[in-house]
């Protein structure tokens, strides 16, 4: 099973579209945790309405106080995920394609799978990934995403960690990521909010790279 953790903010329509894609294209291997802000009432109501109209995948919505970062949301979801084998760092701007779950789990791996945008992707890292609980415990400090970052770079750090071990494997599934920086999504307030942390997170990444990616945070898995 794969626990799909989706932080969301101010994008009810995109989120519902993502959930619909999950419902239609997953083959029974997923559970979903959505993490929303308390003030994001439109999203909360959209998920409640969606969840009340024939949703066929296990779905949970967790509402957090204040304005947590996406990193906090991913980690909160992973901390509370049921004891399933895989945990996925997902988002409300990705597209789940046909049988993505079966194809991913069937990809030979060491417990970490980068989730590529396209068949031709040659990036050093992919912005979304899934890993087994055991792999995260052993190789990522027991967390889904390094909690020191605010928005960016846990994907780079975990990719670096996986590469150093020879564990970096890309899933054979394609999971397009429609993001403003790839010019595959229109800009919105959520993307703008994330951009504010880019320089700070990048500087922290460089510092952590030099230090050798210390596990200087709490393990919760």
């Amino acid at each position, binding site marked *: 099973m794969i626990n799909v953790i989706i932080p969301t903010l101010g994008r009810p329509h995109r989120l519902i579209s993502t959930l619909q894609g999950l419902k239609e294209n997953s083959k029974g291997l997923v559970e979903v945790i959505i993490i929303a802000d*308390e003030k994001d*009432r439109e999203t*909360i*109501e959209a*998920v*409640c*309405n969606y*969840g*009340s*109209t*024939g*949703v*066929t995948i296990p*779905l*949970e*919505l*967790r*509402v*957090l*106080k*204040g304005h*947590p*970062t996406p990193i*906090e949301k991913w*980690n*909160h979801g992973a*901390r509370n995920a049921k004891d399933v084998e895989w945990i996925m760092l997902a988002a409300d701007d990705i597209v789940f394609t046909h049988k993505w779950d079966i194809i991913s789990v069937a990809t030979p791996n060491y417990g970490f799978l980068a989730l590529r945008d396209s068949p031709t992707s040659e990036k050093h890292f992919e912005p979304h990934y899934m890993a087994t609980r055991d792999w995260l415990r052993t190789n990522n400090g027991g967390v889904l995403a390094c*909690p*020191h*970052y*605010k928005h960016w770079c846990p994907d780079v750090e975990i990719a670096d960690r996986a590469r150093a071990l020879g564990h970096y494997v890309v899933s054979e599934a394609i999971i397009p990521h429609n993001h403003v920086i790839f010019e595959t999504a229109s800009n919105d307030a959520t993307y703008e909010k994330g951009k504010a942390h880019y320089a*700070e997170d990048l500087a*922290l990444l460089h510092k952590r790279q030099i230090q050798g990616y210390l*596990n*200087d*945070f*709490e*393990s*919760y898995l």
Partner: protein
Amino acid sequence: MNYMLSILLVINCFTTNIEQFRAEETVDCESLLIKTLDINGTYPGDITVTITYNFNLAANGRLQIANTPAAMEAYRGAVKANEAFRHKYPKVALYTIIMRDTVNELCRFSFNGKHSLPTSAKCAAWVENTISND
């Protein structure tokens, strides 16, 4: 304010399985905004130090904590306490500040295909008092 590790006795926040530390190490948790401080492991050897704060340090990262005077003061205090600890026990091989997730979850819903189901009375009350009254 003096933040050295051994200055004040606020023993109820501090636990350890290491006899040498239990005898003398204390920390002014209140002044450092520390909720609990647990030191466990084998001395000399690998020691894990778990500090739980009364504010959401994890939300901002250890090096980027909230820019409030109280939070900054607490962070400086923790750093000085660490330095004192390292100086006093140089054989300690591992010293880790571990941060708790203090994100506050207001409500959780599960769904059965027909209804959205608040999973606690607190959550149901939150829905009643906020969502329903918007």
